[in-house]
């Protein structure tokens, strides 16, 4: 029985995947695996987020979380839009500056070494600080190297909702919201070196209620700052807007139900070695929780932001978007995955197909680190790019093996479903994988080079491509040669 998880593929990406000969040519010339990015789509995604800002009459920056993809084409294309960029290392900061981002549209986040901080301060980049200690050492750095006054954001954490206690996951980032007074004391004391421009939160949760509590907590913190005569004016709510990966809610619901049944031993396994993805069978009862990304999400990306802004603040009981707008605060967001929705695909060549017991095993010329879907818990079927054959067109469930000589090198432990049995030389396309799956985990394991990356774009009605590092936004706007 098939249990498809059909990836959601929108018009631009679909049109690319229909260019079978172009894709075969590219992999033939540049090798498997091959990562493909669509910079135009990223620009369109920025517009979709901006539309939500307009609906709520809000201003503020849309910071692309650079760590989701290292592509130069994407960062350069974004530099040509009104988006900003969030960099988490010295290399990413240099990359953003070189791509054309002015420093006022760059923010530095995450753990930072002194070189990273020096360049950030030197160029006037906004720095997001995770603790009071970090703020103090930033001030010291500014004083010591006679750097310009540093614009800083203070990341807050541990917000308390009214009425109940939420057992929120412990985070190693952020200043407890209860310590706002200490934060303001510090920024007042070091005001020669630090300019507190706003506060931030970033919660690792998809639950709206927790985010609403955090956003209100940030509003209250800014209110406290204003009472003391300080004028920070922005709230950065981080990312986590999510992506909907599947076309069909019913397929996802069917899969999770069947996975539960498989873990209970009531049906044939759907996964390698009957892996339960977090579910366990204890005495005929299901224990544990499904440790998978919810691949079908009815509300994701800009819609999720819209919903959050329309949600009433738990204490003040006015929509959060209205509270931000009335208070004249800017809203900053840091989407990574959501800005890269529909913006890329990883192609892999089929090396061998064999039957093993009742299973069909497909060996691919890529490994699990090249596509890291399993690492990120996202399950979906690849798309077969092959010339139609008449001999075998019955759907088949297969396990995808990687090119490392390791038992653990499965591209996904889920049995994926294809419309027909693949043949060596066919391509499998892992669609919608620009966000986190392309290069976040890629390695040189066993001497395999990481995937080459190309940027593709439409020009004069045809698809064009170039190596990722050669793409500049003028390409798709210039006249055909």
């Amino acid at each position, binding site marked *: 029985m098939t249990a498809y998880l059909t990836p959601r593929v929108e018009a631009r990406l679909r049109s690319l995947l229909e260019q079978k000969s172009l894709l075969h040519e590219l992999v033939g010339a540049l090798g498997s695996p091959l990562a493909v990015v669509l910079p135009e789509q990223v620009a369109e995604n920025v517009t979709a987020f901006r539309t939500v800002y307009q609906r709520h009459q809000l201003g503020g920056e849309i910071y692309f979380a650079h760590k989701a993809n290292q592509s130069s084409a994407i960062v350069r294309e974004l530099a040509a839009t009104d988006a900003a960029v969030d960099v988490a290392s010295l290399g990413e900061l240099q990359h953003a500056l070189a791509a054309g981002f002015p420093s006022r549209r760059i923010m530095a986040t995450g753990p930072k070494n002194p070189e990273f901080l020096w360049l950030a301060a030197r160029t006037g980049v906004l720095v997001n600080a995770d603790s009071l200690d970090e703020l103090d050492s930033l001030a010291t750095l500014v004083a010591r190297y006679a750097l310009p006054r540093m614009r800083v954001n203070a990341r807050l954490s541990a917000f308390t909702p009214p009425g109940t206690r*939420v057992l929120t*996951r412990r985070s190693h980032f952020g200043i407890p919201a209860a310590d706002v007074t200490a934060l303001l004391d510090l920024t007042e004391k070091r005001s020669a070196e630090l300019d507190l421009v706003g506060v931030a939160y970033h919660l690792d*949760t*998809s*639950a709206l209620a927790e985010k609403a509590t955090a956003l209100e907590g940030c509003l209250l913190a800014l*209110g406290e700052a*204003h009472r003391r005569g300080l004028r920070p004016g922005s709230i950065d709510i981080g990312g986590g807007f999510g992506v909907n990966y599947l076309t069909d809610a019913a397929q996802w619901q069917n899969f999770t139900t069947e996975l539960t049944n498989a873990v209970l031993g009531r049906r044939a396994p759907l996964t390698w070695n009957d892996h339960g993805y977090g579910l366990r069978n204890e005495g005929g009862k299901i224990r544990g929780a499904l440790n998978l990304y919810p691949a079908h999400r009815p509300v994701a990306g800009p819609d999720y932001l819209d919903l959050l802004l329309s949600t009433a603040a738990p204490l*003040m009981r006015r929509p959060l978007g209205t509270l931000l707008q009335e*208070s004249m605060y800017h809203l900053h967001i840091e989407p990574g995955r959501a800005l890269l929705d529909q913006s890329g695909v990883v192609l892999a060549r089929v090396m061998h197909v064999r039957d093993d017991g009742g299973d069909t095993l497909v060996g691919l010329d890529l490994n699990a680190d090249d596509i890291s879907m399993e690492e990120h818990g996202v399950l979906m079927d690849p798309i077969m790019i092959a010339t139609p054959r008449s001999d075998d067109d019955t759907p088949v469930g297969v396990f995808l093996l990687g090119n490392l000589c390791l038992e653990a090198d499965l591209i996904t432990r889920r049995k994926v479903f294809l419309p027909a049995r693949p043949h060596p030389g066919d391509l499998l396309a892992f669609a919608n994988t620009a966000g986190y799956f392309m290069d976040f985990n890629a390695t040189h394991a066993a001497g395999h080079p990481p995937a080459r990356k190309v940027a593709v774009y439409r020009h004069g009605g045809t698809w064009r491509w170039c190596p990722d590092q050669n793409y500049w936004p003028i390409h798709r706007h210039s006249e055909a040669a």
Partner: protein
Amino acid sequence: MRYDSVTEIIGATPLVRIDPAVHGLRNVDLFAKMESFNPFGSVKDRAAWNMTRPLLPGAIERHETIVELSSGNTAKALALIAGMHGLPFKTVTNRMRVPEIKDLLLLLGAEIDELPGQAECLDPTDVDDPLTRMYRTLGEAGGYLHTDQYFNPRNVDAHLEGTGPEIIGDLDGRAPDYFVACVGTAGSSTGVATVLRRHNPQVTVVGLVAGKSDFIPGIRTIDEVHEVGLFDPTTYDTIAAVSADDAIDGLLTLVRRCGMLAGPTGGGAYQGALRYLRSIDDRLTERKSAVFIVCDRVESYMSYLRERRPQLFNRPAVRHSVATVSADEVAGVRQLDTARAQKWIAQSNAVVVDLRGPFAYQSLHIERSINIVDELFAELVRGGLPFGRSQPVLLVCPVGDKSARYAALLTRMGHTDVRSLRGGVIAWRDAGAELVRD
């Protein structure tokens, strides 16, 4: 009737026939077991009392906290029982999705711990879900009386001894031919089904679960039932899904036609029973009886119903609503930019009304402006404004759109000099005009 304790009132609930003119079945007598008549309001009173009763003396002596995983009726019953015996009560839940119940539990003195939402950045090495962690804490910490409703056999026993025999007694010693129940903890359905089968092995038991993406308070989905220790699929002849829409349809029939103030679980059970019985009604050759359970009452679910069926709460169009203002009326409003507004305020003694929320107003506002938040202003427009029609008024909002619409509305109502600040308080700030906090 006189009692020494409210817990003595638990059980012995009525069995009420549904009027055949309402359900339309030709060959089946359909009865509702009215568990909503229990003193704390639901079928869970029985399990809560049966699970705690033998353990209370020890718990009182050690001053233990009663703890349960519940977002609804079990928590409510346990909170009341804990309070009666001077014990604290804590509930841990990831599904506190009905705000009235949350507020009620807080009113009863319960402490509520909510489990966090799913992580956005997945950590595949984190095998501990929050629930597993919670169970471990309870085991290690001590000081808790964990009633464990999903696994505790005394939950089933409450219905083996109470609910099941009561139904047979009220049907003159006969088990019904069909029994339909929603599956939550599986306690009531398992207990009742066991008693009925003992009496008549031919009884058909229908278990109802919620559709996977649906939410019906008190009913688990087809996947979630597998986490329930008391759930045994062989208890049920059929397991069928009901949707939130079904539950609300059933609820509406019960409240509007049957005089039964049933909540969504009762509504789901009625609708599920009806769907099953309709499929067999025509083939029946003799009179049959069927029983479903009305678990609780409707009043706690108003926000749940409002969210899903807003049309049920329609009110007639209100007089003087800002929604009725036309584009032409807005175009006729006198809008002042910042400089002209400053001059006009000084000359005319206009009242400046800031329509933003108090949080934003307290942070920064135009000097000597007064704050009437838009929601309150909308009510004052209908009920009576705190200024006369000849009073000059400047309305202020964040960007000048809302204030213009209200200025148009007030002008239509006969106010002679109401103006709007063009571009709102944001334009005022951007023009460098003074904003104060006083």
